[in-house]
């Protein structure tokens, strides 16, 4: 019961903040809502017994990536007259297709879903930092290394793009 209450509160907050992100007039407010949204998602992870992921979510997403967004918003968007920020008819045809796809997705979830509740007491303990580490450094070593190369490339790319003169 407590879990259900927590889930619904979290879900409501996540969707609410998500809606605010895409509707807020000021971009800075939008970024703020995004942070709040990510924090709620982190709470959801805690409920799913993934505290490590929750902490990573807060640290990397909220503490890192969104700060970057905020920086750029401050650099770019300051005191510009509020332009017509929302245009519902933009990309209309693609929107219809997407909506159809989403409907199909929902239908699939309803048709195939409603699976059993999570079987507790399996191989996954809430204290799973070690397990994640082991998986990352053994079975998924190559993807892990590729991911780090990706980060390196992104870093260099960002520097090259943002630097005025090289």
């Amino acid at each position: 019961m407590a879990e259900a209450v927590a889930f619904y509160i979290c879900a409501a907050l996540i969707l609410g903040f998500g809606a605010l992100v895409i509707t807020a007039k000021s971009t800075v407010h939008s970024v703020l809502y995004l942070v709040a949204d990510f924090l709620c998602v982190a709470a959801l992870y805690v409920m799913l017994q993934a505290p490590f992921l929750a902490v990573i979510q807060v640290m990397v997403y909220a503490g890192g990536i969104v700060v970057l967004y905020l920086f750029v918003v401050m650099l770019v968007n300051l005191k510009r007259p509020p332009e017509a920020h929302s245009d519902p008819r933009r990309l209309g045809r693609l929107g219809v297709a997407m909506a159809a796809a989403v409907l199909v997705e929902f239908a699939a979830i309803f048709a195939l879903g409603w699976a059993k509740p999570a079987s507790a007491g399996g191989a996954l303990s809430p204290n799973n930092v070690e397990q994640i580490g082991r998986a990352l450094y053994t079975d998924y070593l190559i993807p892990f290394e590729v991911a780090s190369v990706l980060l390196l490339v992104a870093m260099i790319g960002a520097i090259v793009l943002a630097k005025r003169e090289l």
Partner: protein
Amino acid sequence: MVEALILPLVKIVIVLVAVLVTVMYIVLLERKVQAWVQVRLGPMRVGPHGILQPLADVLKLFVKEDITPARADKWVFTAAPIIVLVPALIAFAVIPFAGDLTLFGLTIPGRIADVNVGLLYVISVAGIGIYGIILGGWSSNSKWALLGSLRSSAQLISYEIAVTMTLVTVIMLAGTLSMVGIVQAQLAKGWWFGFMQPVAFFIYFVGALAETNRAPFDLPEAEQELVAGFHTEYSGMRFAFYFLAEYANMIVVSTVATTLFLGGWLAPFPNVSWLSFLGLVPGWAWFMLKTFGFLYAFLWVRATFPRYRYDQLMRLGWKWLIPLAILNVVVTGLLKVLV
């Protein structure tokens, strides 16, 4: 019921009150220490030797006019101080202030919670506080505040990397992310990690100064340069929030340093027999003593050093501290494998 609900609540209240009182008196201590270094007396008027000065300060901040600048983003301007303060306070949730205490037949753990990712929790929560600084500077619609907040966030992000790297070495030694586990690992090893990792400890200290915006890294609020940095436009209670948060953050980094490098609540020299009387002092007292020692170092440094320049600070962080911290991780790993 008692153990599940009331006990944690009582502990939360105790920790919050203790932190706020400590903050008030750290401010007084800072003024006093600085005064003594500078051959002055410091606050002397409110109470004997200025002992009631913090109360007067709080009262003053409460009754001061709370000004919101024209054309400021009111919503963000109000939220920013709160965003700074809250993470600084909730970080205390995983700090082990003492070992297990026994009271009225109950075994009470000397902490609010022992999360198995405790250390990561502290780091991630500390990362949230930066929003308050950026947003505060941005929303006040002042160029000085904006410059201050940009400086501050750049500084925090760069030094966080070095600090996190030093924490990695500690994690490698302890083999756990739990704060309690780290203290117990120090007990098991027989050495405080501050002695096993002097380089990491030093980098942590420098990084801690930078992350809490203290001298000689107090550029974001360098009053001689940026007036008051990101909180230039703040007054009254909202300014007090920033002030509280700065000192609460100082206490957070000090308690983390105590836990990670100075053996937490453990008494020093447990293996020297003629010093065994040190074990009679309760654990929380040792913890407080060590924390205050670390805090005193903050004040001492502030009274002694000039301030770094922004580019020098960045150079120090990126070209010295971060490589050094990474090297330290590598060496620690090698030693762990080889020895």
